[in-house]
């Protein structure tokens, strides 16, 4: 049973990655990363050090919110939330 749930969870994660990739999430985040790099490069050295530290600490939450927000927007736009609601999502995820 536990093994089944782990298998289902990994399948679920794999499906999510495919969905995010097809929906262009990774390209969008690559663009955000390029903007980060450009901004950090053009900043004066004393400011760049501080900004780099800030970026390292804030990026995980920005990254997380970006994906959460994008997924919610995608599901709202494609009206799939109702269909997800009528699955046994809580037992698996």
């Amino acid at each position, binding site marked *: 049973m536990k093994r*089944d749930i782990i298998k289902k969870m990994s399948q679920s994660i794999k499906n999510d990655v495919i969905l995010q990739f097809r929906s262009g999430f990774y390209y969008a985040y690559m663009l955000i990363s390029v903007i980060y790099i450009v901004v950090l490069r053009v900043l004066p050295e004393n400011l760049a050090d501080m900004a780099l530290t800030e970026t390292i600490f804030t990026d995980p939450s920005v990254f997380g919110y970006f994906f959460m927000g994008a997924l919610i927007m995608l599901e709202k736009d494609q009206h*799939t939330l109702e269909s997800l*609601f009528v699955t046994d999502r809580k037992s*698996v995820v």
Partner: protein
Amino acid sequence: MIKVKGLYYRYPGNQNDTIKGLDFEVKKGEIFGFLGPSGAGKSTTQKILIGILKNYKGSVTVLDKEIGSIKSDFYENIGVAFEFPNFYTKLTAIENLNFFASFYCKKVANPYALLESVGLASDAKKKVADFSKGMKMRLNFCRALMHDPDILFLDEPTSGLDPVNARILKDIILKKQNEGKIIFLTTHDMHTADELCGRVAFMVDGKIPLIDSPKELKLSKGKKSLKVEYLENSNVQTSEFGLDNIVENSAFIDILRKKEIRTIHTQEASLDKIFIEVTGRRLE
């Protein structure tokens, strides 16, 4: 089994109840048709039955569980095909089915076999964005069936389908009925309801004024007569005869023997007419 007793529902912020005291039961192996015009409260009732709307008054038990207290695992035995077939449009048909299949603990049916059963096998790797409405409806149907649920809630399942594909879906629905599944069919298509449903409930303005089998309704509300259309001197003539002792009706037998018959029809009422007679409303 589905049991509904004294069900009332009011949407937050509304002055009046949308559902005004429903009572009905649906048993194992039954196809129950829920018929009514748009805005009658059909979708609201279905949303309550599948646990989307919770703050209702009265009692609603589905598979022996009060719907207000169900948990996520309840959906292992419930299949829902919503009226609007919504999918992730950038994923293919098979990827969409795999995506939703991963949310069930129980073993799901082979998605390729399911697609094959509704004639979508060759479109399995096509993105849903490129699907027509009819193809999405069939995929929607597969999604509802894939975990072999005990109860199927189908909202306008044949809407937008050509007659051949509508027939395929109807046959699958009948097969599921023979397997002992409960099928709750919401529709305003009287022909589909007439063909599939063991019983139908007429719903208007949040109430159910009548529940009965389509066959009984048509017989009890129709005329017990028969209309014959035949050719006489190259002209089309029609005659109507009462069904009582029709074999002894010499005029009728005479026509059968001597004339060229074009059509013969018993004059039972159609479900559309009965609906208008009972509710005073049209099904639109």
